[in-house]
């Protein structure tokens, strides 16, 4: 029987060892390069996994729930485009007409059973379903600006603003230190804190925050930010949640409002001028920038997470149709990456019942 491997008998022992070393170097080099690209050699770098780990450390793990924006309820409806933005973007979203949408209202933070409170960040996520099968997904919040410029600051902020386990409240010294070290946050926080807080989910605007690029038929790029502006008249909220109300009172109010009548928002596009920064979500563009009313988002029906496909949907803001492209804002890639980790983790977990269900309202 032949031996498993034959060695060229003319090779001397040093030559053989040298050749073996060359093979080892090539294979070892390939493995090292792979491990380096995978980030295994520098475990202290901030990655999408460590960002989601930080959420889990701060808020705990609630199996099956989003690691951020954990408490929410879903909806169905449509977007009625008026055609006003068709010259700016070649996307079918902006042709005159109606397309179905699916979406979700939620609170910022990783606590799925947290009690509703006026100051908690409210969010609106929407999936626009284009007739040709393309999709536009966007996740917006009711803050006029974002408190940080990039994901490094975001991760630091998560830790700095986390409640102290001893007091249950954030440590003011840590917040102060973070704000002092980040002038962009120092500029943004007053705008966030002074925003008018509305009585519910239905009478608040939701801001896209990041800049995007609209591409016309000829490929002409326009920097754009968008805001969903409510048609429902603004009603101010008391500073704290009324003690007599249910812990889901804001969600219950939304469900009741949609049951009474479809709730509507106008999609307002703000067009950037050359020189307007597109890579900084902590600032807005000057007030005199042209605005276009592109159409109306109509929320027709609220659905519990248990039955809506929107529960198992990743509202990754980089899922865009042809005609809308990302800008140079570093938050966009970071959001896409971290949402993906949160999605992958929760999809593999057993689903616990959500706090908000449509059946529960009216009690």
């Amino acid at each position: 029987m032949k031996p498993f491997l034959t060695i060229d008998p003319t090779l001397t022992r040093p030559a053989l060892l040298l050749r073996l070393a060359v093979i080892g170097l090539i294979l070892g080099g390939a493995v090292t390069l792979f491990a380096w690209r995978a980030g295994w050699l520098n475990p202290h770098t901030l990655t999408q996994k460590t960002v989601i780990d930080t959420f889990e450390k701060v808020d705990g793990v609630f199996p099956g729930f989003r690691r951020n924006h954990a408490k929410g309820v879903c909806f169905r409806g449509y977007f009625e485009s008026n055609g006003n933005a068709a010259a700016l973007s070649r996307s079918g979203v902006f042709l005159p007409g109606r397309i179905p949408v699916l979406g979700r209202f939620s609170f910022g933070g990783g606590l799925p059973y947290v009690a509703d409170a006026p100051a908690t960040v409210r969010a609106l996520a929407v999936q626009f379903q284009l007739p040709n099968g393309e999709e536009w997904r966007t996740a917006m919040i009711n803050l006029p600006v974002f408190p940080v410029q990039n994901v490094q600051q975001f991760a630091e902020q998560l830790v700095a603003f986390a409640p102290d386990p001893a007091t249950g409240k954030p440590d003011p010294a840590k917040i102060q230190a973070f704000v002092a070290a980040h002038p962009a946050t120092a500029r943004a926080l007053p705008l966030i804190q002074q925003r008018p807080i509305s009585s519910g989910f239905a009478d608040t605007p939701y801001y896209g925050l990041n800049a995007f690029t609209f591409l016309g038929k000829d490929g002409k790029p326009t920097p754009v930010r968008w805001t969903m502006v409510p048609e429902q008249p603004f009603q101010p909220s008391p500073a704290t949640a009324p003690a007599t109300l249910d812990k889901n009172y804001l969600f219950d109010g939304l469900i009741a409002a949609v049951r009474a009548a479809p709730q509507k928002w106008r999609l307002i596009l703000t067009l950037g001028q050359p020189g307007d920064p597109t890579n900084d979500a902590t600032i807005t563009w000057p007030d005199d920038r042209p605005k276009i009313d592109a159409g109306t988002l109509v929320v027709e029906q609220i659905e519990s997470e248990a039955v809506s496909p929107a529960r198992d949907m990743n509202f990754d803001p980089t899922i865009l149709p042809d005609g809308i492209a990302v800008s140079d804002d570093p938050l966009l890639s970071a959001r896409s990456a971290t949402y993906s980790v949160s999605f992958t983790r929760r999809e593999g977990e057993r689903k616990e019942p959500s706090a908000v269900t449509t059946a529960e309202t009216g009690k």
Partner: protein
Amino acid sequence: MDTKPRTQFAIQSRLLHWLMAVMILAMLFIGVAMVSSLADYRWLVAIHRPLGIAILILAIIRLINRKLTKLPPFPPTMSPLERRIASSSEKLLYALMIALPLIGWGMLSAGHYPIVMFGAVHLPPILPAHPMLFAILRAAHTVLAYLLFATILAHVGAVLFHTLIVRDRILDRMALWPVRRQKAADPDTKPAE
């Protein structure tokens, strides 16, 4: 028809081999880099999807080509056990080249993602949206990608061993340029299975 045993793989087989070698290695490095990169995630994913589908198409073409073309014999220096291992690892490589893109496609379908190639061009879902199915396929995609990388390393290691230590000019069979046979084939050489 040419009845002499080949000394090299058919020219289209060699072209496919090297083209796909470059694509698959690029794909493995993009894949492993994107899941740990916040800054580059978006554009790496944007390349990963269409490149995966291109690999799937080429892998199917290659499988058909593999069934239709005659293969050069194994070098006489390969023992029967080594030949069996080489044949099995070839089957594994083909299986992974086809399975990985299909799992990626199925995983995005199960995760309710649009399967965007470029611009408005996208593929239809091949599986229903389902959370646990997504999670299983997502995990399988990673595990099988590591297995593919390991199998490629073993393949490269074996070829290097033969080239540098057995010195049987095994690489000539896959060289892109024509290589003339050095000496008559070993009498016990049979076409590879």
